[in-house]
């Protein structure tokens, strides 16, 4: 019971958030945060627990987004149906891919995921008749208010985390970590490593695809470069996983919060701080810096990863004790 207390309190707080905070800007950021909890948890399952690092999460995200978008575009079926279908579409992409590529180990698998994403991105761009090509897909949003989207995102974040927590504490979880630690040893212990890697990938792809469909519904617009983006989706997913702590259940949630905040800091030029300084000083140099910083979030991500790996190699959740000790030195110094 005590073990479930923290998540339940957290869930309750998140549930009342849109009732308390009426500002649409913060609601928007929280929807993004919840979406990244789903994606980060999924990436963490296949990469953090199972040790099969994916550089191509956007392949599953984009598949889910396009499944929902195309459903609505071609058949006039609400893209909300695409939530489940998006997950299934991503699994349909992931399983044959895993079947072939899990024969490769380590960096080869990671590179193959990268290739998968590129193949899908180009396919979506080329198949104009079906996908709309580079023009993308535009659908009518179902709601004007952000609140319904918020609760759907919250439900998906809670469901994805709960399902993954359940899996990693049961037999498959032990098998995933065994595969990560030593695949040959795992085989000798009766673990069908190929099957369990596929299982891990299927669950991860499913949730990533669901997140993609959520994105389609919420944003109302996708194109190949947005949903199959290497840096905005695939690398962001890796960062969410690493910053929070790989192989921990709550790591991706912390990582998602940090990364969405950092991303927004850069996108908004530190909430307009640099733009303000530029206007205040009238200096063109400061204005130039402001513009550069706004566009430099990828660089900022890179620096953040280096810092995290150097200072907190196990992520914020994995190195929590280290962080706590660093801040409580006055008490322990006696």
């Amino acid at each position, binding site marked *: 019971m005590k073990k479930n207390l923290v998540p339940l309190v957290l869930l309750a707080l998140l549930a009342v958030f849109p009732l308390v905070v009426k500002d649409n800007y913060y609601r928007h950021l929280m929807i993004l945060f919840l979406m990244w909890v789903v994606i980060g948890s999924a990436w963490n399952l296949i990469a953090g627990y199972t040790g099969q690092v994916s550089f191509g999460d956007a392949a599953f995200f984009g598949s889910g987004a396009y499944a929902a978008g195309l459903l609505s575009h071609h058949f006039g079926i609400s893209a909300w149906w695409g939530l489940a279908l998006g997950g299934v579409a991503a699994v349909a992409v992931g399983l044959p891919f895993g079947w072939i590529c899990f024969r490769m180990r380590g960096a080869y698998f990671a590179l193959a995921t990268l290739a998968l994403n590129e193949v899908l991105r180009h396919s979506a761009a080329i198949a104009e008749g079906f996908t709309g090509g580079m023009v993308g897909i535009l659908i009518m949003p179902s709601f004007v208010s952000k609140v319904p989207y918020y609760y759907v995102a919250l439900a998906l974040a809670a469901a994805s985390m709960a399902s993954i927590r359940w899996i990693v504490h049961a037999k498959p979880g032990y098998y995933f*970590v065994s595969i990560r630690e*030593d695949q040959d*040893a795992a*085989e*000798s*212990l009766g673990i*069908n490593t190929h099957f369990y890697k596929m299982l891990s990938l299927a669950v991860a792809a499913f949730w990533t695809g669901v997140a993609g469909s959520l994105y389609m519904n919420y944003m109302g617009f996708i194109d190949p470069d947005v949903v199959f983006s290497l840096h905005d989706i695939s690398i962001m997913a890796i960062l969410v996983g690493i910053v929070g702590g790989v192989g921990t259940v709550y790591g991706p949630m912390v990582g998602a919060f940090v990364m969405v905040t950092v991303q927004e800091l850069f996108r908004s030029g530190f909430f307009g701080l640099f733009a303000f300084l530029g206007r205040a000083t009238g200096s063109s140099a400061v204005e130039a810096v402001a513009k550069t910083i706004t566009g430099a979030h990828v660089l900022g991500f890179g620096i953040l990863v280096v810092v995290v790996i150097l200072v907190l190699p196990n992520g914020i959740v994995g190195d929590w004790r280290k962080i706590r000790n660093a801040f409580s030195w006055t008490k322990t110094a006696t």
Partner: protein
Amino acid sequence: MAFFRVEELVKYFGGLAAVNGVSFDVKQGEILGLIGPNGSGKTTTFNMISAYHRPTSGRVIFKGQEIHRLPTHKICRLGIGRTFQVVKPLGRMSVLDNVIAAAYSRVNTHAEAQALALETIGFCGMTPVKDQLAKSLPIAGRKRLEIARAMATKPELLLLDETAAGLNPTELIEAIDLIRKIRDNGTTIIIIEHIMHVIMTISDRIHAINFGQTIAEGTPKEVAANQAVIEAYLGTDYA
């Protein structure tokens, strides 16, 4: 019908015949010692039995069933466990979690797996270190973990590849005791070992190979007195 048998096993790596026509039987309940100089093909033989390598030719038969086309994980589930000469601990898992992962090959719920793992850890004398990370164990602990993990898969036949190498005299005695206890519990064993007094005291029969081929088989006494074995180990000058 033999409990376990390999027939004319051959394994080529490129042009090199690591194993070149090895055959032997193992009776249920016995300890068979597999000896030979470095590079003579002992580990390769184990790797073919547990399907890390496909034999170039030959057959492996366990309780009347041909198993040399099955994948490694199925061999484990059929009841053949193994340890690795170069130990393969699941480093960032505790000793208990290592053994739980193995126990899941026989049971499905966490409670059952944990119970079986704790029992096996107790049997192998690892209870005091059960919560340590596997990578923090010294070599003797790692060798013992290899055995504990294999035992949690409830093998009828256990392949031990140099589990006594690198142990000090006290640890060696403990290791021998454990291996005897495993046999007394009804598990058949094939053991590879370089330390002569270990293999001589523990084995019921010994199969000796050199350059991938059988050079002798018999009781420890017979094999120790065998001319070909003495030559293989000491060189022709001493024979």
